[in-house]
């Protein structure tokens, strides 16, 4: 019995150490984002040369949204043929639009759709020669398999991936592509911003989570030259590199995290581009969210089991990168560790063995952790909202408690599924998130809020920065 109690106590101390490490990580990233020097992003580069892009959009029964993303991508481009080659003309065209047609191809991948997706894509292909749909009705289903087939068809040097529900703004292709001028960059990740925040409490809480994750967490990792994560959409990678490392593993559900670590282990860097922002639709029902977070957890933990060892042994990564990478890999294991710790502490309590350490110092330590440590993620999200100029939405922070319990439950299930996957080698089945946008409805059009401190989602993006000629229409600003 004594041995059992000892193990229970050691586990509790272990949990406290893990939580302490993650608390320090949250605070360090947040403080760094607030007060330290920010690295300049590659999107400051202006270039008149364009790399060949292939834009892959996996679609499974996307009749509600397929037309909208294609419309946005088409209207973002301009015909480059028959253009005078003078620099002035090139500049004017650069300013007027985003990316030349003959330097890009859009490959919507119809993945076993049974609705009108196929017809919509064929209709677009008939109108625009650079839209080249890929219809898949045989072979494996799911995003990784669809991307692999898309890669075979793609001819572009750079692959950019969007999910079908995304609403790419006019300049995003150039913002993503420009980062590949750095010869060390293997993949680029942009920022995802929920568009359907007004729908209900869940969408508002997910909006807060996204804000903290991108505005603070990803940006801090970019600043600190750690490991920003490629998120599988609103991002791009070098085609030849990914083909050379074997494309996407269809057994994994988190093909994005898998790609992140495969690139890192071969010496490539991942860049986060906070300015490359794009709207997405977040789940509006708890069921859809449960399936999504469970899938993420399962996929992420599959990647952790596969890459933790190679990560720690990699000659291409610094010690800090290895530490950050390991903490990133473990992130979907924490809820399980917490659940076990709660059960552990209850057991110790009923065994009358809760007294682990005695004295004032540990008491103060526990008190300090309760005061600061528990609130680290909330603090990070609050600061991210502040940086985004959003103020009142931080009042919802306490309600993230509900998300916490919800996520803990489904992430834990996902973790066990990943363990079963590892031991049985079973194939995973991809399940797509449900879309909520109305087929005939308007794409939501967010407006600048004049009452916010900056009214913008990126604090660096002011009309001062030499861009955005149409957003406020004024060139006159007073000192």
């Amino acid at each position: 019995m004594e041995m059992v109690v000892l193990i229970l106590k050691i586990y509790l101390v272990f949990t406290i150490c893990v939580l302490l490490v993650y608390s320090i990580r949250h605070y360090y990233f947040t403080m760094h984002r607030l007060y330290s020097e920010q690295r300049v992003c590659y999107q400051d580069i202006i270039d008149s040369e364009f790399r060949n892009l292939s834009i892959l959009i996996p679609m499974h029964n996307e009749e509600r949204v397929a037309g909208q993303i294609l419309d946005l991508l088409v209207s973002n481009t301009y015909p480059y043929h028959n253009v005078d080659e003078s620099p002035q003309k090139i500049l004017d065209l650069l300013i007027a639009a985003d990316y030349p047609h003959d330097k890009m191809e859009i490959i919507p991948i119809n993945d076993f759709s049974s609705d009108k997706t196929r017809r919509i894509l064929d209709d677009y292909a008939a109108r625009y020669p650079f839209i080249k749909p890929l219809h898949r009705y045989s072979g494996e289903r799911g995003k990784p398999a669809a991307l692999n087939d898309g890669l075979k068809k793609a001819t572009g040097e750079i692959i950019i991936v969007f999910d079908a529900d995304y609403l790419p703004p006019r300049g995003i292709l150039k913002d993503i592509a420009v980062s590949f001028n750095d010869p060390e960059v293997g993949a680029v990740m942009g920022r995802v911003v929920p568009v359907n925040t007004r729908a209900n409490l869940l969408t508002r809480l997910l909006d807060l989570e996204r804000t903290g994750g991108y505005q603070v967490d990803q940006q801090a990792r970019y600043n600190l030259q750690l490991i920003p994560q490629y998120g599988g959409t609103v991002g791009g990678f070098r085609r030849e590199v990914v083909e050379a490392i074997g494309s996407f593993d269809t057994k994994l559900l988190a093909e994005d995290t898998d790609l992140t670590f495969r690139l890192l282990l071969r010496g490539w860097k991942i860049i986060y581009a906070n300015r490359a922002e794009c709207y997405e639709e977040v789940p509006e029902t708890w069921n859809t969210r449960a399936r999504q977070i469970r899938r993420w957890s399962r996929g992420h933990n599959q990647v952790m089991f596969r890459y933790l060892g190679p990560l720690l042994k990699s000659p291409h990564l610094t010690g800090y990168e290895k530490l950050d990478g390991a903490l990133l890999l473990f992130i979907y294991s924490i809820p399980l560790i917490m659940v076990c710790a709660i059960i552990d502490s209850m057991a110790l309590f009923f065994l009358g063995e809760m007294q682990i350490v005695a004295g004032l110092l540990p008491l103060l330590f526990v008190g300090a952790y309760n005061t600061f440590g528990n609130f680290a993620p909330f603090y990070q999200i609050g600061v991210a909202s502040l940086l985004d100029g959003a103020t009142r939405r931080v009042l919802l922070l306490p309600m993230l408690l509900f998300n916490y319990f919800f996520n803990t439950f489904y992430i834990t299930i996902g973790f066990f599924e990943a363990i079963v996957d590892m031991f049985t080698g079973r194939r995973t089945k991809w399940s797509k998130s449900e879309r909520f946008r109305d087929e005939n409805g308007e794409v939501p059009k967010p407006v600048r809020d004049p009452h916010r401190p900056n009214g913008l989602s990126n604090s660096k993006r002011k009309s001062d920065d030499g861009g955005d000629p149409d957003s406020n229409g004024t060139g006159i600003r007073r000192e």
Partner: protein
Amino acid sequence: MLIAIAALLLFALFALPFLPGILEWVRKQDAEPLFISMEYIRNPRYFGKSFRRILKSADFGTGTEPGIYTRVLSKEEKVEVTRCARFGENLEIDRVQVTIGELISSDRVLFNKEVYVAGNAVIGRDNVVHAIAGDGDITLGEGTKCRRWIDAEGTIRAGADCRLGISASSGEKLLLGRNCSFRRIFGMPILTGQGETAAGRADGATAPPGKLPSKGLNFVPVGDRAVAPGAVVKEDIVFLYDVEVGSGVRFEGSIKAHGALVLKDGVVVTGNIFSEGDIIIGKNAAVYGHVFSQKTVRIAGNSAISGPDKIKSVVGKKAVFLEPDVTIYGYVTTEGEGRTIGAKCREQDSPET
């Protein structure tokens, strides 16, 4: 009854922290998506283009009769329209100026509002200009200070000791005298000169023609701290430390340095240069692509960045220093200090000081 009150109290205590959130959830005061400008694209001539558009929408153009008008631009402004404008010494101008012909100012004139000139503009010494857009050439006299921005469809000539505000952009050449300071400049090309203005100089050097670097698989990470003079490197290369590249080395690809990068005289790079540290480019060097540093960029005389048919960027987060006779086709930007410096002052003007 007591139990009911206690239960109610317990519920109230539990709900209290959530109350502000519940109110915000119900009222939806901050429920809109974060703003993304769907039309956003980078434009180095944003200010001038935008100001011209505002004037056009307020019905100002070359056909406007001279006079003083009160119109709403971004706010209500008094606008003075003139055929040609000449301003004597020490004047202070408090109206937006729209000049259909030429504008000439003497020394020490203070323009507190924006200026638009359809013809050429010649600004005297030690003027202060809030902002100026010109459809012809703009010449800035020695010591002139721009508070906000300058944009010309033609050539901009900036004399010595000018301060070019947040942005100076030109549809043609941008000629910078010695000791000019800037944040963002754009020109095809940008030329730095020793004299009061760099006018009259030839177009300067041109970077060699090359292909768009498109290496995918074969960058070479190296730990070497020096590259021998005269070498030819035919791959994209990543230096893991500070590195000094000897004279005359030719890189047929792009360079990434995790530390500082010093390119000695006559180095040629057909791709881009990226560095986490300072980038120092020696004399007679030619870079076909972008120059991007998280710290300071310093470019010595007779060096060229890009060529006449390409727009490339020089980005130095903390500072950009340009010595005389530098030619850059495209865009230069810094969050810190941008300045043209004299070659003779290389030591005391070095980025470290």
